[in-house]
């Protein structure tokens, strides 16, 4: 369960990215976060993942108040989250396989399990033919899918996807959404940000609309 209670996020330079924001997301829910460019979507997702700290208000993730945790605890929480970054954050010094396995290495999986899981994750985003390729040899959409594979490979309890289909054609986007749906069915809490509500259309799930850092219409 994720709860935002009157959360503010001010960046240096007096920029208020999130203002008095309250909402809650149930465990196992699939939620879309929609809003214009600069609305504060990424900021909200980073707050949930603990890579940003709120300026004011309370954020609870799985019953833990994020303002009260130390570094070890934050690390622990992150290990149970899968994050698809808007700017991908791919490591260009290692191939696709090694990029994806990083999430498993952090959790200390055995070599054998790493192999099976990584292969499976890469296949699920349609990159099986690129498994040993370096990221700079991938197209934009392929890089995005690599990022998705890394986020899901350790089967996180919470999946946070920041514009996961921005660089994907309709076919690939649907495939990714199918993947998310599968995770959703398995009980994973999923939050997907999108500037384009079109891609959400036929899911009929809950949409949180953000406008200038506040709940919008």
């Amino acid at each position, binding site marked *: 369960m994720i709860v935002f209670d009157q959360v503010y996020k001010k960046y240096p330079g007096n920029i208020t990215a999130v203002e008095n924001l309250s909402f809650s997301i149930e465990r196992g829910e699939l939620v879309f976060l929609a809003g214009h460019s600069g609305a504060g979507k990424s900021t909200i997702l980073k707050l949930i*993942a*603990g*890579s*940003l*700290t709120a300026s004011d208000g309370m954020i609870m993730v799985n019953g833990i108040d994020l303002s009260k945790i130390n*570094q*070890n605890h*934050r*690390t*622990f*929480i*992150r*290990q*149970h*989250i899968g*994050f698809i*970054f808007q700017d991908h*954050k791919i*490591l*260009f*010094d290692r191939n696709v396989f090694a990029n994806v396995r*990083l*999430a498993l*290495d*952090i*959790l*200390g999986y055995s070599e054998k399990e790493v192999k099976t899981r990584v292969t499976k994750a890469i296949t699920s985003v349609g990159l099986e033919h690129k498994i040993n390729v370096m990221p700079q040899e991938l197209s934009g959409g392929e890089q995005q899918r690599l990022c998705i594979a*890394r986020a899901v490979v350790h089967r996180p309890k919470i999946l946070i996807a920041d514009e996961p289909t921005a660089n994907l054609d309709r076919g690939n986007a649907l495939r990714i959404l199918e993947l998310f749906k599968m995770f959703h069915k398995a009980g994973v809490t999923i939050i997907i940000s999108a500037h384009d509500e079109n891609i959400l259309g036929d899911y009929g799930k809950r949409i949180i609309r953000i406008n200038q850092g506040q709940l919008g219409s």
Partner: protein
Amino acid sequence: MKTISMHFRSFILAIYDIFKNPFEQLLNILTIAVIITVLGSVLVISKNIYNLQKNNMNFPQIVIYLKDNVGQNDISAVEAAINKFNSKVIKNYQFISKAEGLNELEKDKELKQIASDVASSNNNPVPDVLIINTNTPDSHSLQMLVNKISKLNMVDDVQMDVNYANKITNLVGFISKILRLLQVTFSIILIIVIYNVIRLQMLLRQDEIIVSRLIGASDSFIMRPLAYYAILQITIASALAMYLVNLFVIYINNMFISLSSLFGDGFLLKQFSPIQMLQVTGTVVIFGIFAVFLAVRWVFRKSYVA
């Protein structure tokens, strides 16, 4: 078990990283190696300076002029007095009789005319002499020795080149001051250069550090492979440096051998012992780990990742 296997994996990854870009690594390794080599050479010289003093510098001679009419007994008595002294002060001594003295005198070209005049006059004015080769530049203990011997009643006069002794003391002090200056300087250089190389490399791996942290890696998970990476680099650099120091010592020793007329035979630099090599390497490696730690913290701070 898990931790051990993680260490092992980090170690393998580090080897892989080093060999992935051998040329780039080579430059970093060389940079570190040359600085260690310079510091190592200074250390080798410092380590040798004591031996060098002992074997190759002429510490002051003390010349004992015996009275004109001494017999064999008197000479033995003086020798006995000398023998009481510590071998740290006295290296050896030598008796030169009147006759030998005149003989020596004749060898000196400048003086041979005088000597032959004297010899022909059948009245050898040269006294019996005992020459002590001392073993220390410490003028205090030498002066004590001189005073003791002067009191013996068969001794006419005792001469020591105190000025020379002071010179030697000063020279030793001078050399060790310079060596200390060099040690400090090169240690500082080593610290600055290694930290800078490690820091720049960590900066180049900034993405890896930040992304790992963002997806849940603990500090130790992040630092482990980087530390191994630095350890490997520094160990290779250090091994190379030890080899270069060896070459340096051999080179210098060859020069000494070809210049033995200048320095005498005994003067050869000793190599580092394996244990000393490990000590040097170990110290630098520990510093390298510390540098990784500092540099990674600094990357965290720079990138504002909580």
